[in-house]
Structure formats: C-alpha cells, structure tokens
C-alpha cells in the first residue's frame, strides 16, 4: 500500500536562479524536512551552489504554492516552493 513519495517542485528566480544554476528542480524530501526553514537548511547542503544561493538567507523570500510563506510554513509532498529575492517590479 506504499505510495511513492511525491516530490516537491522547487523554483528559483532572479539571482537565486543564477547562483543555484537552474530554475527548477524536483526533489523528494527526507523525513523531517517539512517546513520552509528546514527545506532551506537541507538545500544548503546539496551543493556549493545551493550554499552560495542561500548564504544570505535573510534576503531570500519564499512562496509555497504561489503564496508568500514564512520559514515556519509547512511544506508537503507535491507542493510548489519558490525562492527569490525581495521583489523589485513596478
């Protein structure tokens, strides 16, 4: 009756995309990685590029399923999680 765990879709924009080197990745999160804050900590360890992208965590903004989210926000399998700098449109 085991379902294959569904991945989380992770998106990067602006200089986060440039630092990570890709705009999108699909990752299956390990047990315990179930908040935005935990996800950032886990992503940082994936590569030097991820570590560089999240080095200034205070300047990174997040959205879960296209809503702005705080570090405490829950992340569940199948979610769309985006990381980006403070917005500068208009």
């Amino acid at each position, binding site marked *: 009756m085991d379902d294959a765990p569904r991945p989380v879709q992770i998106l990067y924009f*602006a200089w986060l995309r440039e630092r990570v080197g890709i705009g999108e990745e699909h990752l299956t999160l390990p047990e315990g990685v179930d908040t935005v804050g935990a996800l950032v900590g886990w992503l940082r360890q994936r590569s030097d590029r991820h570590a560089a992208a999240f080095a200034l965590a205070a300047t990174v903004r997040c959205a879960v399923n296209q809503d702005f989210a705080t570090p405490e926000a829950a992340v569940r399998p199948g979610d769309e999680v985006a990381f980006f700098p403070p917005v500068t449109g208009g």
Partner: protein
Amino acid sequence: MADVRVQLADFDLGAETAALTAGRTDIGGIGSFIGTVRGIAHGRPLATMTLEHYPGMTERAMARIAAEAERRWALLGCTLIHRVGPLHPGDNIVLVLAAATHRQPALDATAFLIDWLKTRAPFWKKERFTDGAETWVDAREDDEAAAARWGAL
C-alpha cells in the same frame, strides 16, 4: 473585475483608458500611473532592463492586489499591466488605471496599486549597463515604507 495582464508587448495608455470607459457615464475620474525605464541608474548609463516574473504567482498576486483596491474603494474600473522581458531606456514598464465616481478614490487607488505592485508582486529587475556590467536591482526601503502606509493586507 479588474483587468490584470503580464505581457512582453508594450501597452497603449489611450486605448486602455478608452477600453475602461467605453460606453460608460458613471465614471467621474480616472487616475493612472505609468512607470518607465530611465536611461541612467545609480549614475551609470543603462543599456537594458530585463524584467523577470513568476508565471502564475505574479498574475495571482496582481489579481489579489487589484481585488484589495476594489475592496477599499468603490472602483468602476481597474487595469494593471506589467511588462516582462528586455526593456530599454524610455520604454514603458507598468500601467495602473483606476476609475471611480470621483477623483479622490481614483487617485488614492492608483497610488495604492503601484505601491503594492512594487512590493507584493513577484517581479525582479536586472540592469545591464552600457559597459556590459549587470546587476539585479535591490529592493528599496522607501518602497516598503510607501506600501506600509496603506496598512497590512
């Protein structure tokens, strides 16, 4: 219902205003704001400004901002158009239009909409200067302060 668009193409202020007001006699005032690309940024000559966005979330955020304006003021029309892609000095970036029975709600809503668009819709600007240097534009604290005038969402 607001008309909210993200597009590569330029927009036409006259045509958008005409579309908002066509055949109507209930409107007494229409406020608008257009943001344009300046040729000098941080004292350096700009070659291009490239606008990136988050397809899906950006349109949602814009629709939410417009809905908030419609909640705060009795708007008779509201148009938000934000361009993306590479732009050049003098190009249009963003259009805000707000129509109401009187000028005060039209003008207040226009100011609100551009303040919130700047701070709550996922767009990012990258500047490329004529010397080839590139930089992502930093968020401005006074944009945050301007948006905060209107209170929390």
